[in-house]
């Protein structure tokens, strides 16, 4: 329920305000000026100001500064040279840039669907009050996303090792009779993408599961009860009640995954030593890091980041709209 306060204040409310202490009398004045309100609420603004100050310094300033940088050439130490649209022109002809976008899209398509299915499955499973050891399963699925990436990468590198890795040991010993040859997990372009995708699914399923579980727990049991009374089976309840009501959560998860994929960095930085073999896992985030921090081309890196951020923004808007219209 929402209460609208306008010029037509109901009589009961006016009387109630009149009974309040003197300080609340300000409420009776409709729409005081901005400056006046700022002064009246100065203590509140003072107390919430640290966030805005920090945001302005650490969030807004870099955002604006990197927009400016995208029109310049700068190695971060020497003078900043304004070059107009030259960075964007070079970007248009940069095969590595397109390749990094392609790699990012391919890896995104490889890991997001299985991750969503698994996260949704686990969320539904854990939402069932009859399942035992729910806390343990929830912790088990969530732990990978709070484990330091360097530790994960080290373990996965050992698992994926072509000659001594556990996966190939199981594969060649278990399926040797089928003529199974060792899989070049991190040595062939295709397999390296699969390896990175497996790691991403493993790492991020828990995060999405928690979000989805929260979404599921927000669905009123009454709706299921009503659907059951209407004769809906388990699958129908899932399809006609759970899925439509989960759309806002799924949309949120999709947007977070989209942004996460576009700027994916640490997984490839440590697992495939910066995007190898060749450019097989050289994601856009990796490309950006190399342009900026490895090659000292901060202007060029900013231009690339802004182009991709604009694309991600548009895609997110489309996802959001798709998510809304479908409900």
């Amino acid at each position, binding site marked *: 329920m929402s209460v609208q306060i306008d010029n037509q204040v109901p009589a009961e409310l006016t009387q109630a305000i009149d009974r309040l202490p003197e*300080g*609340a009398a300000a409420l009776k004045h409709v729409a005081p000026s901005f400056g006046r309100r700022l002064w*009246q609420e100065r*203590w*509140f603004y*003072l107390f919430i100001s640290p966030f805005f100050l920090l945001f302005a310094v650490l969030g807004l300033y870099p955002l604006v500064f990197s927009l400016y940088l995208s029109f310049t050439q700068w*190695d*971060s*130490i*020497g003078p900043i040279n304004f070059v107009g649209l030259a960075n964007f022109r*070079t970007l248009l*002809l*940069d*095969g*590595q840039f397109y390749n990094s976008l392609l790699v990012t899209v391919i890896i995104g398509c490889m890991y997001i669907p299985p991750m969503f299915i698994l996260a949704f499955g686990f969320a539904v499973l854990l939402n069932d009050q009859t399942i035992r050891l729910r806390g343990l399963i929830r912790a088990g699925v969530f732990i990978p996303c709070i484990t330091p990436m360097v530790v994960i990468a*080290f373990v996965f*590198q*050992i698992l994926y*090792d*072509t*000659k*001594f*890795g556990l996966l190939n040991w199981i594969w060649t010993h278990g399926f040797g009779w089928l003529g199974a040859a060792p899989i*070049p997990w*991190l*040595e*062939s*372009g295709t397999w*390296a993408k699969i390896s990175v995708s497996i790691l991403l699914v493993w790492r991020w399923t828990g995060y999405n599961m928690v979000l989805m579980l929260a979404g599921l727990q927000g669905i009123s049991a009454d709706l299921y009860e009503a659907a059951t009374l209407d004769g809906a089976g388990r699958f129908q309840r899932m399809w006609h009640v759970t899925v439509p009501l989960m759309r806002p959560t799924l949309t949120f998860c999709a947007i977070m995954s989209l942004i996460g994929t576009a700027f994916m960095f640490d997984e490839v930085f440590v697992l495939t*030593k*910066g*995007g*190898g*073999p*060749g*450019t*097989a896992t*050289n994601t856009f985030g990796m490309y950006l890091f*190399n342009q900026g*921090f*490895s*090659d*000292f081309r901060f202007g060029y890196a900013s231009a690339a980041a802004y182009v991709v951020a604009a694309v991600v923004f548009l895609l997110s808007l489309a996802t959001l709209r798709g998510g809304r219209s479908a409900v």
Partner: protein
Amino acid sequence: MEEADMNWIPKAAIAAGLIALVALVSWLPSWGRPTPKAGTTERVEVWSWGAAALSLQRAVAPMYAKAAPTADLDVQMTGTNLQSRLLLSLSAGVGAPDVSQLQEREAGKFTRTGGLRNLNSVAAKYADDFAPAFWQDCLVDGEPYAIPWDMGPCAVFYKRWVFKKYGVDPEAIKTWDDYIAAGKLMLDKSGGATQMMPMSVADFTDFFQILMQQNGGGLFDAQGRVWVDSPQNREVLALLGRMFDSGIAAPIPLYGASWLATFKGESVASFPGAVWITQPIKDNSDPANKGDWGVFRLPAFRPGGLRTSNMGGSVLVLPNHPAKPDPARDRAAWEFVQYSLCTVPAQVAQYKGFGLFPAYLPALKDPYFQQPDAFFAGQPVGQLFAKDIEKIPPLNRTRDWNEAERMLGQSLSGWIEGRPSASDKAAYDGRFLQNLGEAIGRKLNRKVAPPDEADGMKRGAA
């Protein structure tokens, strides 16, 4: 809540708190440069990592404390990503150390930012004391901005017991073709269980570069043009192709856990590489095999050819401190660098204790380099690595080396993947280098040298 309810907070306290916060924030940058310890007058803060940092802390610091008692030396082991932090400190103008380590291959891009001190007035006199291949990396327009620290002359480490088992004489391996033939022999005799060297198709950029420098090639010529498609580099690709085709290369990525594991057992027989893999080998091989390892010189491209090359190494640089110029500290920093890198006792101590191989040529004449090494069955390995290092061909690293090197590394996997289906391998290699050279030229906005240019490093300086 309204103003009346807030009166319990003394406004003076809030004001004092805010002033304290502002004071704290403005004082923060000075944390980067603490004052010297009691009894000393100049503080020298050094950033370094790994064995190099340990070497400064444990080998050099005690000696320097006697040589320069007024200096307060503070060597900080800063671990990974030192380069990014140094860059940020230089960019901010505060927080940079007095002296910093850099990888030799990265020196070029830092020296050209203007963030490092020009050392010409104090260091030009040392030009002839360092291996030319290394000194070249420290110069911008002919003037030094860095001082070579350790370098990575290359040879082949081998397991004597494996070579003996398959009847291979390491002394008979004089060229890379001899090496491949010996590898094939071992592969056949062991039924595929023993491979000659670790080299993964996923990343063999280091091998390419070792061979490239040995063969007098490069990525840029002396004029700074892209010089990827050269007769030398085509020879390198052909050799790498023969190595992969022969089956002597085990699919093991360099410097990882599995690479360390191959020092044990017989799955890999030898390790072509730089002198700095000596310590990992000693630390990770089976103690029972101590004294059963050996080193032979890097095979040449052709009989009588150069039998060494360089991979890696590092330099020391002096960052500028434009925000707080302090000539006394700058002088103290240079004196420390000079002592550590341009004196024989300090260089020998670092090699003895931590295996840092001096780029400073006078140090290589020290008797310690003639000493036998029990781990390598008494071979005087120091002498072996020191031989001919002054003949290693220099490279023109330019400020764009990292990017060109990365583009090379990223393309090499594609080269090896597409190679089996190519009918004319030489034409395929040539096309690959030509395309790569053009791509690098486009990206870096540099001219591309003509493909038949064999002496790119000899024609005039940049």
